[in-house]
């Protein structure tokens, strides 16, 4: 599948130097981490009950968050790309704001909106008895809040670039609007959707600030891998390194494995 794009002629030396600096900048922190990892008791730590619980919680919540991000984010991306309505640019900015918000501020904002005393949360609490803070559902809400923008940003340009004439054609042949969306619009953006889903999932997996602020930190219920890493850093720094290695390993494998298979965008 993968197509080699060869550069003809010489690459400017400046570019090579700067690119090398960039590459080293990313590689060195991981090398530093690996250097300190206590390889001898790796499996002791990985078998630790708290670590397994945090891993399981992290996987469950981040996968649910990524699926929800796609379920809600794809329609939003489509609406932003294909429809005209007042305040569209404003909405696009708001929908991606949580990417640049300090995560702790995001957590506090979630309190003020979905918390027990929040703008909407108080009704959730009063009418349905649902309280999001300090619950596993709260973890997913925090992850969704920071992860969905990645999906929207990946998918929206793809919708905008895909040729609307295919959709027009399908519609003129009698396809319902739902049929057109699921059979024509959606397949056209599949590579972008896959990469968006992956980025959103990876972001959800690494989420820390909004989670510890909004969902709290309780083993088994809200203590995800990044939170377990943070707690371990207080007491068992070497354990913390092994847990972060685990997180990195999972994300890296996914990013590496899926890259070639799904993300090969037509050039």
């Amino acid at each position, binding site marked *: 599948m993968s197509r080699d794009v060869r550069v003809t002629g010489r690459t400017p030396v400046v570019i090579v130097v700067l690119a090398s600096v960039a590459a080293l900048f990313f590689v060195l922190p991981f090398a530093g981490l690996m250097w300190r990892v206590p390889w001898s008791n790796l499996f002791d730590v990985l078998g630790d009950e708290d670590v397994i619980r945090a891993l399981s919680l992290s996987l469950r919540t981040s996968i649910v968050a990524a699926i929800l991000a796609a379920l809600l984010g794809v329609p939003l991306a489509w609406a932003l790309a294909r429809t005209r309505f007042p305040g569209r640019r404003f909405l696009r900015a708001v929908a991606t704001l949580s990417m640049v918000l300090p995560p702790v501020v995001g957590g506090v904002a979630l309190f003020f909106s979905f918390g*027990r005393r929040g703008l909407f949360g108080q009704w959730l609490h009063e009418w349905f008895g649902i309280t999001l*803070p300090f619950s596993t559902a709260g973890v997913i809400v925090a992850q969704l809040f920071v992860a969905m923008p990645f999906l929207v940003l990946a998918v929206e340009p793809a919708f905008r670039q895909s040729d609307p004439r295919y959709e027009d054609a399908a519609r003129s042949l009698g396809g319902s609007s739902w049929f057109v969306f699921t059979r024509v619009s959606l397949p056209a953006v599949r590579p972008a959707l896959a990469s968006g889903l992956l980025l959103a999932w990876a972001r959800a997996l690494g989420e820390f600030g909004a989670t510890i602020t909004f969902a709290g930190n309780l083993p088994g219920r809200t203590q995800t891998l990044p939170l377990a890493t943070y*707690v371990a850093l207080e007491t068992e720094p070497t354990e913390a390194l092994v847990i972060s290695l685990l997180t990195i390993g999972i994300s890296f494998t996914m990013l590496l494995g899926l890259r070639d298979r799904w993300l090969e965008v037509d050039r």
Partner: protein
Amino acid sequence: MVACGPSGSGTDTLTVFATSSLTEAFERLAQAFESETGIAVESSFASSSDLAKQIVEGAPADVFASADNANMNIVAESGLLVDEPRVFATNSLAIVVAPGNPLGISTVDDLTDPDLVLVTCDESVPIGRYTAEMLGRAGVVVSPDSYEENVKGIVNKVALGEADVGIVYVTDVLAAGDSVTGVAVPDEYDVVATYPIAATRDSGAARRFVEFVSDSEVARDILADFGFGAPE
């Protein structure tokens, strides 16, 4: 080693790492110290355990003020203390609840109610260990809903109305003003927290700050204003 000036842009800036429960008191102390000596103080507040770790990893602290001896010892064991630490203040525990205590919490036993949203800190953070010690003495077992990063996190969750109850220092309840209400912990269960301070860099300014905090009348008054006790 040459006695190099404190970190920061100017030579007259002192970097103080202080545990979160000292936030309000140390802001005032820093002002008093600055007007007396002309040395500006930059403070970094976090849990004692976070700060101890940062100092051990090479953070540019001139002075460290901890909420317990254990975290001070972590820094001491790394050979980073210039002098013996000095205890300059004490603190005790209080139950923190929403303003006006709507749930009517009056004793430590009330904390066992499983429907209460109770937040605390991990035992690596001083308040977490003091809390465990106090509950142990009272023979009370609680089921926390979250382990916060530091004591201010506990106060904030209660002030925001998201948690029903937490155990913090008496001084935190005082500092939070009207946003929370404190319920006293009975004396027989209470734990006395001791606060040591030490210079972590060999500079005149750092030593002077440590002396100011642990010996001066001004500092003693400020600490008393914020509810801290004097060391024995």
